[in-house]
């Protein structure tokens, strides 16, 4: 049995041709190449097609509520910073229902990788607009086409001070995998927004649309250049793929938290002394 993979056949609930498949391959490859011990890896996800990912990777997971994957992940990481924690979900899950946790967890800079499958649509609920849906797309709810401005998660994350901001596209599994690896290795919060086609519901942002409307950053891009990253994030005629921004040395949530100032032991391993508590009754 290969690490992170099941020794039985899986009934994967995704549609044929879906970008979630190559994403899964890339992710498993990343985990393997980092040589992580699956018992020390925890996935936290919400609800959606994307959020089913942990069901198909043999490791620990907490498959919680729609929109709340980041909150659970942040807590897991903070009580046991030794774990490798990955929060994963869709664009609706993480940018819609979960928007407030995105906002405030970026401020916390928890040491985790945040993988968002961005298919610009609500898949599991059968094709409504997501916060990243582009204007004009017609759906069963947006019957005359989307009219709200799409959310730019990359610009948003940068404006909030995220320390690692990347965008990938499942059309290139190899590079996507490398970005996921870098995100996991990054000390701090790492957002990886991953474009992937939803052949079933999103008839506009197809594989070739993504192909034609994106380009990969090359080595000349300096990910420590914040202004440049912001420029790239804001220019949407073509979407830049790659690690747009990366800032090192920023204290992570657990590093900054007073409970870990003196004592680095994960709080779950510390023993409570009843005598010490007894002293409070006086």
């Amino acid at each position, binding site marked *: 049995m290969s690490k992170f993979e099941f020794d039985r056949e899986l009934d994967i609930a995704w549609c044929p041709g879906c970008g979630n498949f190559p994403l899964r391959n890339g992710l498993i490859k990343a985990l393997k190449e980092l040589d992580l011990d699956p018992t020390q890896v925890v996935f936290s996800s919400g609800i959606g097609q994307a959020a089913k990912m942990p069901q198909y990777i043999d490791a620990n997971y907490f498959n919680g509520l729609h929109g709340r994957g980041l909150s659970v992940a942040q*807590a897991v990481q*903070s009580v046991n910073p030794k774990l490798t924690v990955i929060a994963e979900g869709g664009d609706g899950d993480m940018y819609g229902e979960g928007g407030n946790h995105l906002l405030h967890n970026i401020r916390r800079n928890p040491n985790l990788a945040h993988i968002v499958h961005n298919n610009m649509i609500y898949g599991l609920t059968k094709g409504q607009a997501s916060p990243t849906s582009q204007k004009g797309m017609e759906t069963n709810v947006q019957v005359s086409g989307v009219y709200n401005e799409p959310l730019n998660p990359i610009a948003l994350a940068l404006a909030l001070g995220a320390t690692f901001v990347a965008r990938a596209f499942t059309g290139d599994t190899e590079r996507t995998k490398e970005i996921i690896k870098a995100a996991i290795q990054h000390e701090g919060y790492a957002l990886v927004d991953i474009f992937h086609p939803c052949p079933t519901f999103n008839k506009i942002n197809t594989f070739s649309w993504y192909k034609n409307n994106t380009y990969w950053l090359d080595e000349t891009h300096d990910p420590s250049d914040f202004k440049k990253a912001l420029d790239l994030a804001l220019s949407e005629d073509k979407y830049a793929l790659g690690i747009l921004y990366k800032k090192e040395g920023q204290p992570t949530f657990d590093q900054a938290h007073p409970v870990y100032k003196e004592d680095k032991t994960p709080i779950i391993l510390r023993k409570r002394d009843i005598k010490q*508590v007894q002293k409070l009754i006086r």
Partner: protein
Amino acid sequence: MRESLSIVLSGEAGQGLQTIEEFLVEALSNEYYVFTSKEVMSRVRGGNNSVEIRVASTPVYALRHHIDYLFLLNNHSFYRLGKRVTSETVVFGEEGFLSEEEKSKYGVDLTKFDLTSLAKQAGSKIYANTVLFGYIAGMLDLSKNHGHDLITARFESRGEKIIQDNINAFDIGYQLGVPFEVKTPIKKRTDHTKYVIMDGNKSLGIGALAGGVNYIASYPMSPGTTLLSYLSSKGEEFGVLAEQAEDEIAALNMTIGAWYAGARGIVTTSGGGFALMTEAVSLAGITENPAVIHVAQRPGPATGLPTRTEQGDLNLVVYAGHGEFPRIVLAPGKPEDGIQLAQQAFWLADKYQVPVFILSDQYWLESMSQMEPFELSDKYLETFTVTTEKGYKRYNWDTTISPRGVPGFGEGFVKADSDEHDEEGQITEDFDVRIRMHEKRLAKRELLLEDYIEPEFLGNKESKNLLVGWGSTYGVLKELVETSGLDVGFLYVKQPFPLPLHLQKHFEGKNVIVVENNATGQFANILKLELDVRVNERILKYNGEPFHIEEIEAKVKEVLR
């Protein structure tokens, strides 16, 4: 009613009433029996707040409606208390603090007490509180030295000068207070118990620590915030990771995540904040993930009366969350139970893998009383998690309670799922698995009654009148039973949900009188539903105040058989 004095200090937010209260309760506790509580407006400065301090010859546990001594701290601190004074009441205050109209309307006079100039004598207006402390200490013949000690301890970090000025201020007040003649003199207590002063908030904090809490994520909301502050302040010392969440939804999801990863977490909030958490309560239900949730009640609906008291959210916690799953609700009515129920909450949540609620209210949390110190049990630090083996199944259904592993500890994987799932924790839509898994979860409802926390019975077991209370009505009902001479028994329920059938025996043939601080009698309904109890009378109060002792006595008398 007991031989007691009710002293009320009335001023505005920002005038430091809480400091005087803290001084007095400590000083009084050494020599008398004492109980204090406060009522404050939902504002930061101004308005009108008051503190009631009851001093007595025998133990007291509740507020009186009638005020014996009223200290007015400004010229708009009387009007809200008009109904609580009589010609017996002595009203202290500066010139003009009581208007002519108020005097004639309520038949009271002003006893001049020029706190400002006394404070100035001591060096500055800011010493007014200390002068007042001294005055009351003098009135009640409290130890001067003890007063000095308390002052010294409090201002230790502020330097010699501040300490000395405050001691002077105290003495100025004290000297004036001594000759004051208390009309219904109370006796000093003769027992030598070293009581500790405890309020509900602190008791829950201590209980949580003694129950192994090491995580708290919460969003501020009165009156739930104090527990967050308390545990935050103990964070470094006890290894408690405290984090202010961005909202209540995050707070409970984080707490659930923390438990999943092996911590013992609590979340504290009030009704409105808790309403936002109810989806996550259901998450705890299906994932069989422990959670401890402190709901500090205040009057609703919605924002309601944010700084006042009510017991209006029992139904909410009993029925919170979609779908069906078991839970436990605990409701402390005295500081000892604040400590013990909080301890047990963590242990029960861990043992039965269910959400456990601690349901308190503003009044109980912010009342201070004397508690006899006791030895904390370490029983509740016991944990129930296991090291996983290869092939570990989180929802193994060989037993109703599946052994709970923690990610990273053992060879197995811990897979928790909010979807219906199989034993491994993988999503399923198999109808038979659904039934079995659902029944396994629901079966815990019976099982957890094995650790049901029994009620306490006070008063006459043989009486045909049975008072029933839960949570914060404990104090006033206890005092009623002990002092009114009425022929009643009183069942104080600490775990209002779920209820075991054996409780039925308490109600058989009785005139059942349920006393609740809400408008519909929510616990009375639970008694009917769970135990088929026929509730004869409901004594309810829902204006935002707790019951006063005279009031409860009058209302109980009306319905006795």
